């Protein structure tokens, strides 16, 4: 099977608010079921605790950040410590500020919230995926400026 470049997905995983848990679950869904062969992730705080290898993540992979609220911690920290991201998702624009910033409580977490965001997240992911494939093709010299691809 052809090895395709993987896409990095980094979530804020915020502990205090609902949006952070949704962001974390989306990233896990991407890894486990939605796009299991195309995704890599990294723990966000590793940009502080880790070394050069961890910090080069956003340079090594086309990267999407997923934030649970409008503070956009994942986006800001990744851009500050690792590199420019290719796209960012702010869940408060999909689910609303009130819900995203609500404090985690003892109610069972609803997976419905994750499903609500699926379409938007996958659209962005697939666009970044297509751009990465295209870049790869151009770099390999196989792209001929039209729909044709030269086989090796």
């Amino acid at each position, binding site marked *: 099977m052809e090895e395709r470049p993987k896409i990095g997905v980094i*979530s*804020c*995983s*915020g*502990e*205090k*608010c609902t949006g*952070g848990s949704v962001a*974390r*679950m989306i*990233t*896990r869904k991407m*890894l*486990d079921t939605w796009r299991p062969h195309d995704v890599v*992730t*990294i*723990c*966000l*705080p*590793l*940009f*502080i*605790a*880790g070394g050069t290898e961890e910090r080069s993540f956003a340079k090594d992979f086309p990267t999407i950040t997923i934030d649970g609220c409008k*503070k956009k*911690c*994942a986006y*800001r*920290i990744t851009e500050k410590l690792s590199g420019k991201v290719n796209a960012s998702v702010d869940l408060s624009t999909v689910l609303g500020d009130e819900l995203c910033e609500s404090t*985690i*409580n*003892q109610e069972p977490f609803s997976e419905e919230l994750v499903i609500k965001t699926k379409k938007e997240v996958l659209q962005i992911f697939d666009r970044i995926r297509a751009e990465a494939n295209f870049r790869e093709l151009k770099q390999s010299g196989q792209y001929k400026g039209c729909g044709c691809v030269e086989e090796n």
Partner: protein
Amino acid sequence: MSNEKIYILPCSGIGKVYGLLSREVAYKVVLDLEPQYTDTICLASLLLEEIKEQVVGKSVICVDGCPKCCAEKSSLEAGMVVEKKYLTSHFVRKYRGEDPGSGSELTETGKKVVDDIAKAIQIEVQRILQERGEL
């Protein structure tokens, strides 16, 4: 007497079960065991300057999933006072041969590990409160 809540800060590592264990431990302590005396905060937000100002000098108990100790290092970076740190991977050893779950979901064994760590943290919280004269 400070009457300030003690922060319980998990690493919430996303790749393996150890990070999920840390997250669930924090919720167990903050929501079930010691809601009056503990709270949590988004770990990622500690790296933002505007949040650092709010937490500098505050007490925190860190729950990390691996020896990279992201929660502890981020707390120290933010100027918090690390009262105690726990590694979830150490507690999993007690259940050698059993599966604690994955980064997405815990098994019954994983839930037992959460209970073990949460109880250890509860004892630590009470110790800190006694030292402060709040119990």
